[in-house]
């Protein structure tokens, strides 16, 4: 009993001591030298260090990506097979999703590439480079093949789409802009080294890992439910990588086509497309002469630089709130706040001693910072540097938003005439549904039918 009390006493004494000695000192010293184990011949064991995932598997991931992209292209352009694409989707969800747990993926790689590209000294592994660039290069030739069946996010949403509702074009156009804004924001936060928001708010990664924070899981549940009724909500309205692919696939060498020579204007492809990516033929009476829209186009073209400047100005006003995404800025603000408060219960002889302040006034972060003994001015300087990066970055972000909106308005003003059913280059994700629905595709129709029904 006495020894117990003694032990407790020594404990309390130690607690008291430790509270007055900064933790850094405790860590450095080896207070108790290890004993010699002579009588038992005890060997001091080594801690185990299970290795990180071997480089070989990274290479394998890249190879699987390349193979899946190749297969998707073959299935879409050669076999024109929805069934094949569907099986590939399931494979991608299983491999890149559930097996690889959604990491590494090109969507998140945007941030690594942006951060490394702006010279932060971030190491960009080969596998990240491959994952980011391969689908982009392929998009220049074959459109959004990556989205069709290789991306686990897209494949998952496509596979669970049961009852698609039609999103009205105006809403679809408007929501489609969100992806560009999200891209701009993600690049801004990555370049300033503040956060990887794409990964932080990824809608499916919690599902692939089958665990995650409550927030992530509810985002997952929301998107999964939504994807049952709205075709690929993430791909169409939010995915920042999809936004890049939309731009690049405008330039693609080949694209998904509904064969005009077999088309009998039966509407089936248009109705089968859950993404609103198939343009109907323009009725003749609506095909207005080009001249009529010229003034409007010029007006919108003049509006673009104006919107860019306006966006830039407005963006730079947002630098303050945006910079609070950065932990250094937040910490500097916190320290400033704590320093400006009247000090309670602080002995005069120990300036800056963190343990004497009431704990509720100090966050763990500021406590940890004070323990490092770093000068406040250094922190403030760091925060100011981050802020100045935000100042410039948020101007560009605002300008980007202005540019996107301006170009969208301009593109809507351009007259479009379609003499046949046509898949939109940027909106089509090559899911191959229309192939399965097209009667001409399957050779169900008499090859001369079109000639027969044509006026």
């Amino acid at each position, binding site marked *: 009993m006495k020894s117990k009390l003694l032990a407790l006493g020594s404990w309390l004494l130690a607690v008291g001591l430790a509270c007055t000695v900064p933790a850094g000192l405790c860590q450095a010293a080896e207070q108790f030298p290890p004993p010699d184990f002579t009588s038992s011949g005890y060997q001091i064991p080594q801690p185990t260090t299970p290795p990180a995932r071997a480089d070989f598997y990274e290479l394998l991931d890249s190879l699987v990506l390349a193979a899946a992209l190749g297969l998707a292209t073959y299935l879409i352009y050669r076999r024109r097979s929805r069934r094949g694409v569907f099986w590939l989707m399931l494979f991608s969800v299983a491999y890149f999703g559930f097996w690889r747990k959604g990491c590494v993926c090109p969507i*998140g790689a945007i941030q690594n590439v942006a951060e490394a590209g702006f010279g932060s000294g971030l190491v960009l592994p080969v596998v990240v480079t491959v994952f980011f660039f391969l689908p982009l290069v392929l998009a220049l030739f074959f459109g959004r093949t990556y989205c069709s069946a290789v991306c686990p996010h897209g494949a998952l949403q496509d596979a669970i789409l049961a009852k698609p509702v039609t999103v009205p074009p105006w809403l679809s156009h408007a929501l489609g802009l969100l992806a560009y804004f999200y891209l701009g924001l993600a690049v801004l936060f990555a370049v300033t080294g503040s956060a990887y928001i794409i990964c932080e708010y990824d809608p499916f990664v919690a599902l692939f890992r089958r*665990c995650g924070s409550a927030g992530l899981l509810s985002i997952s549940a929301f998107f999964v439910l939504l994807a049952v009724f709205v075709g690929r909500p993430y791909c169409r309205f939010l995915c920042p990588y999809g936004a890049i692919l939309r731009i690049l696939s405008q330039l693609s060498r080949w694209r998904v086509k509904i064969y005009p020579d077999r088309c009998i204007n039966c509407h089936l492809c248009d109705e089968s497309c859950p993404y609103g990516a198939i343009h109907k033929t323009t009725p003749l009476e609506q095909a207005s002469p080009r001249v009529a829209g010229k003034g409007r186009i010029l007006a919108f073209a003049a509006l673009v630089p104006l919107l860019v400047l306006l966006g830039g100005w407005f963006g730079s006003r947002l630098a303050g709130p945006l910079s609070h995404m950065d932990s250094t800025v937040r910490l500097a603000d916190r320290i400033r706040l704590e320093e400006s408060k009247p000090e309670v219960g602080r002995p005069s002889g120990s300036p800056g001693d963190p343990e004497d302040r009431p704990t509720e006034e100090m966050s763990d972060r500021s406590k940890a910072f004070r323990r490092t003994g770093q000068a406040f001015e250094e922190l403030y300087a760091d925060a100011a540097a981050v802020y100045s990066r935000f100042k410039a970055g948020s101007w560009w972000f605002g300008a980007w938003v202005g540019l996107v909106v301006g170009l969208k308005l301009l593109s809507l003003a351009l007259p479009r005439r379609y003499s046949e059913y046509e898949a939109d280059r940027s909106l089509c994700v090559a899911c191959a549904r229309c192939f399965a629905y097209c009667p001409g595709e399957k050779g169900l129709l008499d090859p001369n039918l079109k000639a027969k029904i044509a006026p």
Partner: protein
Amino acid sequence: MPPENEKNCARREFLRTGLQGAALVGLGALAGRLVTPSASQKTVWQIDPAKCIQCERCAVNCVLKPSAVKCVHAFKLCGYCRPCFGFFQPDYNALNAGAENQLCPTGAIERSFVEDPYYQYVINEPLCIGCSKCVKGCTAFGNGSLHLQVRHDRCVNCNECSIAVSCPSNAFVRVPASQPYLIKGKEHA
């Protein structure tokens, strides 16, 4: 098709090919700039034990449940303290492995007799949740041989580690995948 339309199509095609070529060159240049042989090494997340303040966030903020962060015992640093400060509650009843005496909420530390009066403390990793209670005790009153490490047989190496985001002391760092641990008392392991 009227000839003017045909000309338009040809012009559009030419423009598209030109832009496509430009985009290819741009992507190639960007990729070429970013990938240099010296900078191609993969990195993984690890905890710098010198910066860790045992705030218990590792246990709750990992995307994995239980966390990929576990306690590691650097036996070489261990002082084999008679009341192990990582193992026993501050107000233990007796120096034995009774549940009421143990600090670890999951009983993940195994105490085994070595020779009088020394005991060896081994982390039973499947039980460890990375709460850092033992680390706190050991660091404050012992040698600090118990410390937290990201275990790479569990870590999924997220692009941005969600513990790193919430770590108040910036203890999460990227380390080369070839030397993925920062075990105390060693340069690397």
